[in-house]
């Protein structure tokens, strides 16, 4: 039952994360939401890892933590540059890629 509770927590976190990504206008908030999603995935992996008694999930989780750190580093750097050029980080104003 413990596993189910972990999975439930993971699902809740995931949903919060997805909501944040879709609804927030602030780029930093979006990045934070992405972190939430990644960590919810970590939670799932660890839960299954405990359940099956193998260390594969733990290994994956470690990888994901490392990748998340890198991703946030890149993302924040981009946000910083955007702020320097535009004096804003509102995502609505950044629509140059409009086709």
């Amino acid at each position, binding site marked *: 039952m413990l596993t189910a509770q972990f999975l439930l927590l993971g699902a809740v976190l995931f949903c919060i994360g997805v909501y944040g*990504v*879709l609804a927030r206008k602030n780029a930093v908030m979006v990045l934070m939401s992405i972190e939430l999603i990644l960590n919810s995935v970590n939670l799932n992996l660890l839960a299954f890892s405990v359940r099956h008694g193998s260390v594969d999930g733990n290994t994956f989780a470690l990888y994901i933590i490392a990748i998340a750190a890198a991703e946030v580093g890149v993302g924040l750097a981009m946000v910083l540059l955007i702020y320097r050029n535009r004096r804003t980080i509102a*995502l*609505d104003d950044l*629509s140059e890629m*409009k*086709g």
Partner: protein
Amino acid sequence: MLAAEATAEIHASTGWFLENAWVIPIIPAVAFVLIIFFGKKMPMKGSEFGVASMLASLVLAVGAAWQWIQRVDGVSHAAHSAVEEGAHHAAPFVGPIIREWTWWQSGGFEFGIGQHIDGLALTLLVVVAFISSLVQIYSLEYLRGDRRYTHFFAALTLFSAGMLCMVLAPNMVQLILGWEIMGLCSFMLIGHWWEEEANSRAALKAFFTVRVGDMGLLIGTGILFFSANNWTQANLGVSGFNISGLSAWAMSGDASQSALTWGAVALFVACIGKSGQFPLHTWLPDAMAGPTPVSSLLHSSTMVVAGVFLVGRLYPVFWEGMKIGDTNINFIVLIGGITIVIAALLAFVQHDIKKVLAYSTVSQLGYMMLGLGAGAWLPAIFHIFTHAFFKACLFLAAGSVSHSGSHHSFDMKKDMGGLAKKMPITATTWIISTLALAGVFPLAGFFSKDEIIDNVGHNGYTAFMIVGLSGAFLTAAYMTRATYLTFFGEARGAAAGEHHDEHDAHAAHVDHGAHDTHGAHDAHGDHGDHGPHESPKLITIPLIILAALALVAGLANATPFGSNWENFKKYVEPSSEYVMVESAVASGPGESIVVPAAEEGAKKEGCAVVAPEEGMACYFPTVSHAKFKWSKAALSLFIVAVGLVSSWLFCVQYYTRRNRRLVGLTERNTVLRGGYKLLWNKYYLDALYEKVIVRAVAYPIARAAYWFNQNVLDGIVNAAGKISRRVAGWVYRNIDQRVVDGAVNGSGAAARGTGGALRPVQSGKVNQYGALLFAAAAIGALILVIINT
């Protein structure tokens, strides 16, 4: 006699130096890399690495030789006490120290690398390391100021690494590796002063001529491998490249005679090329274009004996393949005998002191081959040993003369004469070595050369014994001529203090790239002495050491003084004892050699007479040794004396007194003129190779290739051009214009349509993209769930 008593287990001693002899070639190889990368930055321009590595190798080689002597002593002592006196007809078997690692694997074949240490390998190891050390020390002075000083030492060191690697090769693959490294270094060092065209031509000639022979090495190795591999794998558990495996296979009686014969012939062709035997000897005299230390090390004492070494190393193969045991003339004896005489005759007409020595080397190599071909294994190997010392000494002395006596000239007739007074040390060492080469009694050459001649006669090759004796006469005579022209008589040219102007010097000595050392020579002018003088210590000390060895090296196997003096026979000659199969392969500390019982009867005959039984192997044929007799020695000494004296008298009459009856005789007498012309043109062999063979091969091929090019290839190209033009026109009109363009335009229109349709999706809003992503992921997850339930 009970079997248990008869089979004595003898523990052969070993030691660190013997176990790790494979380090010996590694040291100069590492030094080579160091010289190449750091040599120019070092205070002595890299030469310190070379000299130090050679001295280190020498120490290791001497240590190994010392432990080998202990090992042989231990085994023979134990054998004598364990087995009844008289039961042994041959020396007890002392196992070589064989270690092998896998080098690489290919197609199920395993190629090993390692060491095979026995008396023969150790003899060569010590000689090569020793001469290399002395020659490198000599070169410190001789090449001082040379523009490629560092590269010279690098190549010299690499050469030593290659030779040492070849000498301790446990299999044919490593042997070929070392053999080819030596060939490469020989090429680099002959062409050291490649700015002169003659030098680079000589380097190429040496390389290509030896290459012709090297084909035989590969073919012979291949023949032997494919015919021996099954046998050696089954009986000894080693591959068909393994030298002891090949030896045992050749002696086993299971080997196919034709494979043995053709393998031996092919390998001997390689030896002909490398060891300058007739008819491929022509490269060796030209190789004198290299610096003198190179001639001394590579082209007299070490590299050129590689062929002799190969025959000695795989002696069972040659013994069985060439049927050396019979007294019929075989290939090796024939080539050796011819080489002795033709090379010795050529030495008479040379003006260049180094070329005299080069032909002398060829002739002495002929002696070694003659000995090996006639079953005189030990004297031939012993001759390698003694010859190395006195011939290296002669070359270094010639270098000393040109360095300090004759203004970098090697021309005996133009620039030498009367140098004995000016250069006493050089002259003394030269004369000692000359007498040793001629074979005067207590000097080194007597013991080895006389043994060869004696054993050749003893083994039934009477005609070749006469060839050997006449060779001894010729050797004494031409060396006397060279000595007289160089050190006695009146001084001529540079030896008389005449200074060539720069241009003349180049014209006269174009062969030797003398200009490179002119910078060094100009320093002599500072103390106002342009004339000949004694060389500095770095040159004379190696000379003195080598001359001392030329005096005493023969005592290492002095047969006339009884069997106690025959150290080479005891420590170097492999035993022809039958051995249990395992003992020769196993190695390592505590290895036990099982000496099987020598039963009465058939086994008394020894290897090579009766094939070994199941589970036994032979590694060396039984060779007989001639009993030394003073009467026979007296004959050869008399012949040598006649050669020395008659040649001396002739030289005095001809070169100094200018006796009218002798001078110009070659112009007046038709027979002599013909002979002189034949010799002067080196039997027209060079002309034969270059004008006839190369032209016959190259010109028709060139013409045929030109015709083929003009008619066939051009025709094909032109036709192809025309056809492709027509095809291209049709393709342009039909395929390109209609199909391809249609497709391109159509895809463009399609892309534009879909782009327009999908355009609204690219809103530029990150949140929308995210929403699409998650929606897609959610749909995907839903589908997965539906499928799996």
